[in-house]
């Protein structure tokens, strides 16, 4: 119970002081809106096209939503020493890290809703498998948050965290089959695609929305869960190694 009180208050504090700050909310809404609007306009409200780009839009929204503020909630708090104060509390490190990242996960999920809501008005979404869609979005959000976390705990400066996360985010848009299938990439880039978590999330989403999947569902799920655990424990290890000297 005590841990839950601590967990909840850390999450609420981050939501209040970071995620719900007007600039971040408007960025969180505008960014997916702009992407979505741009793509939907290009497809000229052709139902098939909208469905085929919805996956990519949801992925991009999640990817940017989850990682946008980790440089602040983690790297910046380490620099101004409030993270050190958190480390002095009796909350176990894994709880603490989960509490500090769950804001990012929630923000990513909220961002994912923007393209879906827009698509609702433009096309018929009745064929979408919402169960699989939900699972995919959730695992995408968790894995990309933890990827951002790993970056945030591996650098010391805020700008480094931001630069590195862009270094990952933008290539992933092309490498992970978000807007066009991986099979259209040159074959030497395939191994790169297979080691990036969004590839599997995007695959699940394609399956849920259009019914086309590259891998079997169990493989996507296993890969995503595996990435989440790997990234989480790597981050914990890095905090212990670099921050608790």
């Amino acid at each position: 119970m005590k841990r839950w009180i601590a967990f909840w208050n850390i999450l609420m504090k981050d939501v209040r002081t970071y995620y719900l700050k007007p600039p971040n909310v408007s960025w969180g809404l505008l960014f997916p809106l702009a992407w979505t609007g741009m793509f939907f306009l290009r497809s000229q409200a052709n139902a098939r096209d909208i469905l085929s780009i919805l996956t990519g839009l949801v992925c991009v929204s999640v990817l940017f939503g989850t990682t946008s503020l980790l440089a602040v909630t983690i790297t910046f708090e380490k620099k101004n020493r409030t993270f050190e104060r958190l480390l002095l509390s009796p909350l176990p490190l894994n709880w603490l890290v989960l509490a500090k990242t769950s804001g990012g996960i929630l923000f990513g999920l909220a961002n994912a809703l923007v393209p879906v809501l827009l698509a609702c008005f433009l096309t018929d979404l009745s064929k979408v498998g919402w169960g699989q869609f939900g699972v995919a979005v959730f695992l995408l959000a968790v894995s990309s948050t933890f990827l951002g976390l790993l970056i945030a705990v591996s650098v010391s400066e805020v700008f480094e965290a931001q630069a590195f996360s862009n270094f990952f985010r933008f290539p992933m848009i092309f490498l992970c089959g978000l807007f066009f299938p991986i099979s259209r990439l040159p074959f030497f880039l395939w191994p790169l695609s297979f080691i990036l978590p969004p590839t599997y999330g995007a695959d699940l989403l394609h399956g849920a929305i259009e019914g086309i999947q590259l891998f079997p569902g169990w493989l996507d799920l296993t890969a995503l869960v595996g990435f989440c655990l790997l990234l989480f424990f790597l981050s914990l290890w890095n905090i212990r190694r670099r921050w608790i000297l």
Partner: protein
Amino acid sequence: MDRVIVVRNLWKHYGETAAVKGISFTVHAGEIFGFLGPNGAGKTTTINLLTGLARPDPVPAERPEESTELFVCGINLLKHPRAVQHLLGVVPDENNLYPELSGYENLCFWASLYGIRKKERQERARELLNTVNLTEVAREKFANYSRGLKRRLAIAAALVHRPGLLFLDEPTTGLDVAAARSVRRLITQLHQAGTTIFLTTHYLEEAERLCQRLAFIVSGRLGRIDTVSHLLEPVQGKQFLEVLCGPLPPHFQEVFSRVYPEVSLLVAGPGRFQVEVSPRLKVPALVQFLETEGVEVLEVKRKQASLEDVFVEITGIEAAAIKQEKAKGLP
């Protein structure tokens, strides 16, 4: 007496530099124990080691006969480095509260980390704001506080879970005279309420005034550890002549000890030294001796021996760094 902290042979390296070199000491329940030393001596590192924010290194291979012990509140930190954290309050040398939250919100937030429920948190926050005299600015953002107010709120934040042991890292450094005084008053108040306090400082007077027992730390090593009155004993009643002068010639110490073999001389800086007052040493004769040696005398004054003299004697280091800080003055 209960021993709240027991440290034996504690080592810590950062890369090539050894920040803490095999220190040993104990802190008793209910006392204010002071770590007195210049910047870079290893004070903060020691606090980090005692609070689980840093991990001790093994004893260097060339000293196999020694082994490290590290107990805080009866818990072995070598085995359970974070198990003790709910029993400690820590006020670091820099502020580490949330600038965008108010004083009241900060206290409520930090209390929640210890699993304290909402109603109790709010009561505790109000009570602490009252203790540290910040009720009036409770709703202001922490970012807008002055340094002194920030430090007082940091102390309050360290007390949210009613720890019996409080670490204070240079609590008055960087504060103006009035703010420093009010922080010291707060420390005394906490001590009287029964809190054991581990305090670091580089102000000699502060250590002398606040602490029951003191350890001198210089370059990661501890000098004598004793009560302030015991430390002062060897210099009690002694008087010194402090001489401010131009640059001293080389071999000055040798020449001096040839002329005044039984008078102890302490060179404290390029243009400053002191000698113990003795019947053999007359001021006019001393001045004349200095002038013939080519030393320009600016000022000679008599002063009572203080903790600073003990410090210089024990550590054998030049206290210039400490002196500089002192020049800024304490109330």
